[in-house]
């Protein structure tokens, strides 16, 4: 594939052909028209580069690949307007930019600069993978994976035998679901004997979400194989397989079909997961948890029990995390359930109701399949090791997982279905647990969830209620977040934390916890011996200048200080705040809310500062001029940081 960008006439021709293909039904419309208000907001955010709003809209479930009435897709808008981060985020979330398609080429054609163009090229579909591909690849790899042994049924046809997994068969093939439900203890199954081994293999690969290749031999052999596939797909009740094989199309069609197939397969797995794994979880008193005996031959083919202990009530009260938490124990002994946060629609009730009894020290056991747990490197090592967990016993092993049941459920859901929709409330726990279990992708999702919560200058709440009093601080404890980011080594979250604090520095600067945090950051740096500066403070300084910069840039410092002009300027600024499009403020995504936040937040500080006598000129007159106020505030905050550092005896 050439890396050159196509010319305009080529694009037009591509559009024509694509339209024809779509209208004739050969091709699915990848960029459907969306004129809803939400989508318009989304597009607007992409134009402005407002990462936060984009994230908000995406989490509302908007189709990221839709187009507006001018045929623009969000990705095109973002790359046209030169918002690298937004484009990257969109691509990460599945926005398409495929060579040889009209929209893809158009996107490349319109990219503002080479940096963005290269980004787009690097996400070309042929290189990027489908979001569900990791799940599919894992399930397919089970067919060839030897260690640890996870297969529990041997399926024969003729001379061919494959060691398979009952839960996969049961989830994917109605035929097997039916048969295995009747006799769950079966360990071997004989299918029709006179089927070409290739057909058998193809069907099984299909069940295991593998890519069913078009290479089925040639001539007579192909006929035989096809006949076999046809026969088996009827027997296993998976007619789509045969249809798919009969209709190979071009690359794009094949890809679309593959995507559909994967989605379907995922949904099947998810359904099966809901109806079996989650439905069969056991709640017991903690001291009895290890006495639960599950036979190897159970109706849902589980081969391991994961145990999660419920949280203490005290922990729940610790939400603000202002104080250091109680010493963690090796095995946590907590009383009672937490005021849980909904996990999933169907399991919600089941999860909640027993805990309502307030029976102290409960544990939840989830019957699981090692085959799926292998997606976590820790589990993979565990089950392959010669330790107790790696051996087969009469009853299923109970493996404790050091997290709350609802968190474990999130993890299991992710491992089985690649779904990672969980509430912000769980995010830190999930982050931590995913880090412990080496589930990198889930970690990233959790980090993404937290970091898009607020874009620094505005919060979810504020964006809806510009002058509202609701504060984000109640929603997250930024200290926890930053510490978690250090512990789990998620850089994106570190940055987020620094930005978050920078935009509310006046709130935090005098808190003792902040001091502790700075100290911790400093000690981290010592251990690494990379640089002499305190990373956190550096980051905060950077974002602080970011926060105040736009005001200085627009007016210039002299003008700002010239108070005779301020009336007109401030009026403009006031207007600009609401429209967000005037007075040159719109090149950045911060639609003007910070002044309020700053103003509000600074009010107590100013008094405080005055009493300290630091800024003698600060009086009511100044409050009327926001630019001067900003400038002075900036200086005040920087000075405070300086003093803090001095107090701590740190450089930088």
């Amino acid at each position, binding site marked *: 594939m050439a890396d050159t960008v196509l010319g305009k006439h080529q694009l037009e021709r591509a559009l024509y052909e694509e339209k024809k293909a779509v209208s004739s039904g050969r091709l699915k419309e990848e960029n459907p028209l969306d004129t809803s208000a939400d989508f318009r907001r989304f597009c607007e955010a992409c134009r402005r580069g407002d990462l936060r709003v984009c994230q*908000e809209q995406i*989490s*509302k479930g908007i189709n990221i690949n839709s187009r507006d009435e001018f045929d623009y897709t969000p990705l095109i808008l973002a790359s046209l307007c030169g918002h690298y981060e937004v484009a990257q985020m969109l691509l990460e979330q599945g926005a398409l930019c495929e060579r040889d398609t009209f929209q893809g080429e158009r996107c490349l054609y319109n990219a503002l600069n080479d940096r963005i163009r290269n980004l787009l090229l690097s996400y070309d579909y042929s290189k990027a993978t489908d979001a569900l591909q990791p799940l599919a690849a894992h399930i397919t790899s089970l067919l060839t994976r030897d260690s640890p042994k996870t297969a529990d049924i041997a399926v024969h046809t003729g001379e061919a035998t494959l060691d398979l997994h009952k839960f996969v068969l049961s989830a994917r093939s109605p035929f097997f679901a039916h048969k295995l439900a009747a006799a769950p203890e079966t360990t071997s199954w004989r299918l029709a004997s006179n089927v070409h081994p290739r057909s058998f293999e193809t069907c099984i690969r299909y069940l295991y979400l593998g890519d069913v290749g078009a290479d089925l031999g040639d001539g007579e052999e192909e006929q035989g194989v096809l006949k076999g596939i046809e026969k088996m797909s009827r027997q296993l009740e998976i007619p789509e397989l045969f249809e798919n094989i009969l209709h190979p199309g071009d690359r794009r069609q094949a890809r679309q079909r593959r995507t559909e197939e994967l989605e379907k397969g995922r949904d099947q797995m998810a359904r099966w997961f809901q109806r079996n794994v989650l439905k069969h979880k056991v709640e017991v008193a903690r001291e009895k948890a290890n006495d639960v005996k599950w036979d190897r031959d159970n109706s849902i083919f589980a081969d391991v029990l994961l145990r999660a202990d419920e949280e203490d009530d005290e*922990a729940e009260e*610790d*939400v603000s995390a202002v104080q*250091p*938490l*109680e*010493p*963690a*124990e*090796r095995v*946590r002994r907590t009383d009672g359930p*937490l005021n849980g*946060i909904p996990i999933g629609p169907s399991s919600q009730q089941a999860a909640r109701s027993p805990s309502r009894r307030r029976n102290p020290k409960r544990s939840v056991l989830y019957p699981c399949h090692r085959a799926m747990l292998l997606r976590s490197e*820790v589990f993979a*090592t*565990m089950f392959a*090791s*010669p*330790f*107790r*967990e790696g*051996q087969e016993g009469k009853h299923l092993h109970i*493996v*404790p997982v*050091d*997290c*709350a049941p609802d968190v474990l459920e999130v993890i299991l859901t992710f491992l089985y279905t690649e779904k990672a*929709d969980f*509430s*912000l*409330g*769980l*995010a*830190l*726990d999930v*982050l*931590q647990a995913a880090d*412990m279990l080496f589930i990198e992708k889930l970690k990233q999702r959790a980090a993404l*969830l*937290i970091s898009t*919560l607020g874009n620094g200058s505005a919060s*979810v*709440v504020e964006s*809806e209620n510009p002058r509202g009093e*609701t504060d984000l601080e*109640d*929603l*997250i*404890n930024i200290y*926890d*977040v930053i*510490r*978690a980011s250090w*512990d789990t*080594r998620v850089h994106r979250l570190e940055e987020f934390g620094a930005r978050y604090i920078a935009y509310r520095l006046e709130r935090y600067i005098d808190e003792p916890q902040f001091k502790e945090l700075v100290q911790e950051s400093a000690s981290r740096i010592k*251990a*690494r011996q990379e640089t002499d500066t305190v990373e956190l403070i550096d980051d905060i300084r950077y974002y602080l200048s970011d926060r105040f910069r736009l005001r200085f840039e627009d007016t210039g410092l002299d003008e700002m200080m010239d108070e005779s002009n301020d009336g007109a300027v401030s009026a403009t600024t006031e207007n600009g705040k609401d429209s967000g499009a005037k007075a040159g403020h719109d090149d950045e995504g911060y639609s003007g809310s910070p002044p309020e936040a700053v103003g509000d937040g600074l009010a107590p500080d100013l008094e405080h500062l005055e009493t300290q006598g630091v800024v003698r000129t600060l009086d009511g007159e100044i409050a009327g001029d926001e630019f001067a106020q900003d400038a002075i505030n900036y200086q005040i905050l920087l000075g405070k940081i300086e003093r803090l550092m001095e107090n701590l005896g740190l450089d930088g």
Partner: protein
Amino acid sequence: MMATMSRRGGAKIRPPRRGLQGADVDFDTTWPILEGAFKEIHTKNASALSFEELYRNAYKIVLKKKGEELYNKVARFEEQWLGSTVRTEIVRTLTPPLTLTDGAGRTLATSSERRTAGEKFLKSLKHAWEDYQVCMGMLTDVLMYMDRVYCTDHRQPSIFAKSMGLFRDQILRTPVQPASTTLLDVLTRIVLDQIQMDRDGEAIDQFLIKSNVYMLEGLYESDLEVEDEKLYLRFEKVFLDQSANFYRDEGERMLKESDAGSYCRHAKKRIDEENDRCRSTLSESTSAKIQAVVEGELIRHKMKGLIEMENSGVAFMVDNDKFHELSLVFDLEARVDPRKSELTRAMQRLVTEMGTDINNAALTTSEATPQREAAGDDEDGKPAEEGAKQKLPAKPLSQQTVAALKWVEEILRLKDRFDKICTTSFSSDQTVSSAINRSMADVVNTFSRGSEYISLFIDDNMKRGIRDKTEAEIDSTLEKAIMVLRYLSDKDLFETYYKKHLCKRLLLKKSVSIDVEKQMISRMKIELGNSFTLKLEAMFKDMTLSEELSNGFRAHIAGVMDGAHNNSKPVDLSIRVLTSMTWPLEAFRGASGEDRDENSLGGRDITLYPPEIERLKSGFERFYAQKYSGRKLTWYNNMGDADLRARFPRSTRIHDVNCSTYAMLILLLFNDLPAGESLSLEEIEARTNIPRGDLARNLQSLAVAPKTRFLVKEPMSRDINSGDRFKFNDDFKPSFIKIKVGVVSAGNKVENDRERKETEKKNNDSRGFVIEAAVVRIMKQRKQLPHAQLLTETITQLSHQFKPDVNMIKKRIEGLIEREYLERMEDAPVPSYKYLA
């Protein structure tokens, strides 16, 4: 979903479950659990342990920033474990047979004692290593989080690498006793000892050594684990040194004690053995290196001596057709030298030696010839010679021809022989066979009569050799000739000879089969190119044209006869019109060369003919002039022959006499002479104008040879001298109806020295023209060219014809400059020429 919740305002981000501030550390309670578990692991009691529990504990420690502490504790634990438990276990196996050494460091125990003890040691080391690997694998699994987080962040080697380093330090590098050798040295010594036993033919436990080698391959000199700092390399070096010594000694001993053949066999065996050893006992990576050592010691340094070994070296092998051994030599040589220079040189030397023998033999034969001929001539030359020429179709060949035939055969046999060696023993190796071919070519080319002899060989075959042969045999004969021809570099000289010989064959109708002649030409065409055979083909063309001419003339005469008076005797004329440039006519004059003078050169058509012949001659000239205007015919009477019908007084019948044209002219003189009268030599000469040499030869045939003594000479002697008188022999009584008068004219004989010089001179002259032509061709194309380049280009252009002499080229260039074809370029940085057109 998030936004929804946010709006509700109820959802807060839940603080993480554990306090992460690191204020509390239960390291002191957690570590004992881990330590206990590690002990269990090392004592193979892990099955009851819970991975999850251990992992969780390690995870928490790391999470609480105690990673470093944990790391160091684990390292210390391992160090202790290795240092105390494992090492003692191994040191215990160091039994006296291994430790008892004399002053020189050699052990005093017998080899079987050493072997048993060594194996015991190796076994215990192997077990220690393998166990340790398994245990550390498990430990690493449990400490996964530490590896990923602590080690990565702090740039520490992974705990596995660290512990392998500990194994190296604690087990291998620690002295067995204070101030004594380390276990690594002991291990090296034992392994080498065992390998030596293996070389000496004792069975050893290869697998055991292999396991220990695996260990060395898994360990590095430092904790950085640099790929080319494996411990094994240290062992390998010692091993290679020791092997080099061993094989150097062995090679010298063998060279003294055994013959080349068995040496080769042994060397081959050793190489294979070492190869196998690397696979089965040591590491594959050593294979190439030890190979190089053995090759170096057993072959490279010994090859020359081996090849030149008296009574068993390569010469001996070739002499005795030891193909297998030759192939061994070849194999060995090929290992150390892709160009096989030693063997090649030896083979070339052999070829040259044998070829020179053949050349010398041929020279001796040909030099012996004139003496014996002279001797024959002195005693009873006449009968022998004439009998030879007249009676026997397969006349005995002249010694020169015999020499030529023998030479060609010998050369071919030599070639066959070496070809066979090449294919059977040297697997048709390109380098060697081309070197041999080069030597063959040298042999052929150093022989000064090569070109002539080859041509003679063909000539002889054309005249007699192929008479009773099948097509296939003829084919192979021709092929042989071509094969030798291929070696020849002076192709132009050969062409000269071949033309001469062919000319005689054609004109004297000596050739057995014109078809075969043509075949030969076409083969040469394939081999030497179109231009080479151009003239030869033209000769054939002339032959056919002449045939047509003669027929045409005959028809013409018949027409004239019919119309005109019919009283003259019909004289039949058969004519060969030869294009002067294509035919080497001087060859014929050369045959009568000794008394050739201006007379015979300038007076070709001054021969006086009797009227009827004269009429015929001028008739043909007119006829020819009609057909081809502007061409000049020159008559070569000395090459013609004539059929006469004669009556002899003592015979009643009419005899057919076949004689040369000159003989006819002489006989016709006596036709008109009254009986009893005689003519003197001078008279005959005056009346016929036949050159003296030809005249004398013809008179000799007519008056001396007994079978055709039509004339009587006065005085009776063998030689013809001036003043001799001749008269018709009335007493001649022919015994056959057909009489052939032979002329003492040479067949295709080898030239004598003077002739050869002549030929060469002529050849050089013609080469001069060819060179000039080539130079002009090149310059015309390139316009200007440096001297050196012109020389090379000229040589390349001419290489398929002959190897030009550089001096000659220079001279020719001079000549061209004089004649202003070229000029020197004054301002060129290197001497260059410019083409003037």
